[in-house]
């Protein structure tokens, strides 16, 4: 890889061991993907909940945090994905003191590195939305696909160590979605069904993701009968990234790099396409059907909820009581939680027996241990991403609309 003088100095250790580690890491990753050089980035976003980092990851962060201030501080605005523990709620969730201690250690280490603890996977809705053409180093697959697809920014999936490296060096290897040539549409999908709910948009992401199944493919979606809003795009992208490891998409006439079908494919429209109709959507839902079974926990998460979603939940649950054998959890970012508190939305949800968690996301919060401690097995959600991933933690998930999730929470039985 070509390095400039400053990058060579970092590699030689002239800016301290943290930046030396970071640029070595970036060169190893960049070489693996044949990157020619490093590209400056405007922000970094770190996924580093302590379930993912483990104790060894926390110790690694603490090692960096002990360096002199000028050597350890990040060079660009660097923010965080959801944490593993909401310190205001972990006891109610039967998370352990050990989990909270580990989380607190990680937070202290990040703060010593001057990382801003935003604790959100919806930073594009709540912190600083990326701009078309802006190079970034974002973690969280849902954040990356939204930033690339909806906003036209440029980021690869950056795992915690790589996003931290970008924070320390101010750049990232130039490969994948930093390159024009990799952003060309490669597969065409036609939607022949009307989408009426957030979960429908998630299902579309799941269908396209399963059919695409590669980080290096860029699906192009046509046939939609209306322009989706930000939350619908959020659920679509999160599911697409989760089911397919996809990091980029185009919707001609909607997303910024695809004013037309021809531009989405950079002039090379493939002759074949894959169609999804109402039966495909029904079959997708049927995989998770469990009508009438006991509802252990109803979860609104993955991604964290926007203020509009929190309001929808609050309106649906206000004045009703959640069944005493069922738990209801809403996760959102700290900024949205403050707004929800101020507007009385949190109060409506919690008076009904639900919990509104701040700065966490369900599956990043020791989900397996919470299931064991609380006796949860059957999980109900409107997040297609969550039903895809939570089975690995021992849950049996069911995908429903937000309205039916609430009905299930109230009755204690799955209402479909």
């Amino acid at each position, binding site marked *: 890889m070509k390095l400039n003088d400053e990058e060579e100095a970092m590699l030689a250790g002239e800016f301290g061991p943290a930046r030396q580690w970071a640029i070595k*890491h970036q060169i190893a*990753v960049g070489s*693996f993907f044949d990157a020619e050089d490093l590209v400056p980035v405007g922000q970094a976003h770190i996924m580093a909940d302590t379930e993912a980092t483990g*104790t*060894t*990851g926390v110790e690694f962060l603490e090692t960096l945090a002990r360096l002199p201030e000028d050597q350890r501080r990040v060079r660009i605005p660097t923010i965080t994905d959801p944490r593993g523990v909401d310190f205001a709620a972990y006891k109610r969730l039967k998370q352990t003191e050990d989990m909270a201690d580990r989380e607190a250690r990680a937070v202290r280490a990040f703060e010593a590195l001057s990382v801003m603890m935003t604790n959100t996977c919806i930073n594009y809705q709540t912190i600083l939305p990326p701009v078309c053409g802006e190079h970034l180093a974002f973690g969280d697959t849902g954040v990356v696909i939204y930033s690339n697809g909806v906003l036209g920014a440029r980021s690869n999936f950056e795992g*915690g160590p790589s996003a931290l490296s970008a924070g320390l060096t101010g750049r990232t290897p130039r490969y994948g979605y930093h390159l024009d040539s990799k952003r060309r549409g490669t597969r065409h999908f036609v939607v022949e069904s009307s989408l009426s709910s957030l979960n429908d948009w998630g299902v579309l992401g799941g269908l396209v993701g399963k059919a695409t199944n590669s980080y290096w493919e860029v699906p192009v979606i046509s046939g939609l009968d209306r322009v989706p809003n930000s939350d619908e795009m959020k659920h679509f992208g999160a599911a697409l990234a989760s*089911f397919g490891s996809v990091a980029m998409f185009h919707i001609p006439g909607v997303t910024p790099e695809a004013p037309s079908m021809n531009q989405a494919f950079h002039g090379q429209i493939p002759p074949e396409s894959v169609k999804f109709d109402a039966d495909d959507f029904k079959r997708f839902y049927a995989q998770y059907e469990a009508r009438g079974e006991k509802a252990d926990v109803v979860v609104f998460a993955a991604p964290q909820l926007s203020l509009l979603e929190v309001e929808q939940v609050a309106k649906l649950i206000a004045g009703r009581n959640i069944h005493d054998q069922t738990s209801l959890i809403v996760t959102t970012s700290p900024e949205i939680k403050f707004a929800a508190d101020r507007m009385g939305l949190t109060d409506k949800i919690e008076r009904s027996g639900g919990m509104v968690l701040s700065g966490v996301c369900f599956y*990043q919060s020791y989900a397996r241990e919470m299931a064991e401690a609380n006796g949860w097995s059957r999980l109900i959600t409107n997040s297609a991403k969550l039903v895809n991933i939570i089975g690995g933690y021992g849950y049996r998930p069911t995908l429903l609309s937000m309205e039916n999730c609430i009905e299930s929470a109230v009755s204690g039985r799955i209402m479909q």
Partner: protein
Amino acid sequence: MTTVLHCHKGIGPAVRGTALCASDDFSARYDLDRMKGVFSRPAHKLYGQDYRGQILVLNTAKGGVASAWMLRHMRESGVTPLAYVFNSVNPILAQGAAFGEITMVDRFEDGDVTTLIRSGDELLVEPEAGRITILSRAP
């Protein structure tokens, strides 16, 4: 008789071990019980199988940014595969291998690596040379 497969230059040291193979994908967060060292997602083709000390041979990486931290933690905890072999990886697994200095290769010239290698085959994985040698076939 040995068979040599050619791939892109990889990450990590050369290792020798036994293959655990499936035409399925991989996420450290969603597919594994990392305490017990077994595949835990019921839909995975290696569900219930012990991956400790094996060379995993799989198709591609799924979403899941967490794997970048987890590969190193798995290695340091000792409940870990020996190496990772894929048809193609997403950046997360490559970043995880680089962070943990763990052996990983992908992009084979010879075809679908999940059909070229079978569970139980003895392998020599050489990332620097971009090469896997099948030293002996599973009985």
